[in-house]
């Protein structure tokens, strides 16, 4: 599936994550800011990557600002951003 336009999902509130997706010529690239980057940065990126792969999304730049989101929230926000980015609405 191809991202047609930039999209975003989530909030800057505690326990949430703000996700921005941009069409990208290269492979998937993730830029992450997180209050728990040192401890959980790798895991957060893995959840985002797995979710993108599950939805067959390639060639996307992900910018994410994490405020302590659990995996289910990260997945949900990535899915929402994908849905918004692949739609022409």
């Amino acid at each position, binding site marked *: 599936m191809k991202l047609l336009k930039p999209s975003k*999902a989530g909030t800057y*509130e505690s*326990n949430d994550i703000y996700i921005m997706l941009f069409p990208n010529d290269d492979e998937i690239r993730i830029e992450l800011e997180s209050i728990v980057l040192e401890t959980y940065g790798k895991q957060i990126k893995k959840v985002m990557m797995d979710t993108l792969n599950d939805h067959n999304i390639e060639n996307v730049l992900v910018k994410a600002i994490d405020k302590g989101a*659990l995996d*289910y*929230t990260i997945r*949900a926000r990535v*899915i*929402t951003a994908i*849905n918004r980015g692949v739609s022409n609405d």
Partner: protein
Amino acid sequence: MTNIRRSMLFIPGNNPGMLQSADVFDSDSVIFDLEDSVAIDEKASARILVKELFSSIEMSCERIVRINPYDTPFYASDIEAMRQLDIDMILLPKASVESIKDLDQKLIKTNINIMVLIETALGVEQVFEILNASKRCKGLMLGGEDLCVDLNCIRTKKGDELLYARYRVVNASKALSKFAIDTPYTDTFDEEGLKNDTLFSKSIGFDGKASINPRQVHCINEIFNPTLDEINHAKRVLEAKEMALKEGKGVFSLDGKMVDLPIIKRAEKVIELALKLGLMKGTS
């Protein structure tokens, strides 16, 4: 999970912090809200978040999802997403006979039950027919705020404007052996008001009360718990009944008052609830 429903706490469906804590507030049931607490632009986002929550976090409370109303563009997508999940009930807002029949059809091949939100003047007048329109429908909640808008009256703390609706929905639900939950008390800083409103709810037959803030849950639970006096009296009624049976008496009295079947049934209900809530220790 038991069928005790003293408290039902609304949690906004697009708030991860509240969602993942839903089980810790001691509410018997939690209503994950996709309707009023979610902005129009975030409806799909909340639906996905709630879906992911249930796919990853286990909860011991009763799980209810309030979907969007039948006449909105979000209704069908909400049901489609929720019918795949391990939830107990769907709360149908602005319920009508037509909408509950439609929801019932859409839940075929699932174990999900229905609870209706009675919050229109027509809904109050048709409450018996609405409750009776689906075998999945286990009970109702009264929605005071929307009802007052429909009635074109001001919602007050005293609640006189809701008296007719409260009595009517309780009677209809009890006539059909279904549960009835009262509308939330909306001033979350007025503890005394919440207490009085909840005492009134209990006094006219509601089984529980909705809450819109976790700080309301404890007060509601306490009021809907059987009191120590009620438990002790119920135990004495059942002991007296056993004694009368042994002595071959059809009718008996306790403290000079005749005990008949309704009193025995009430005593049994009190003891059943007290046992489920673990309130029986040290009551003799």
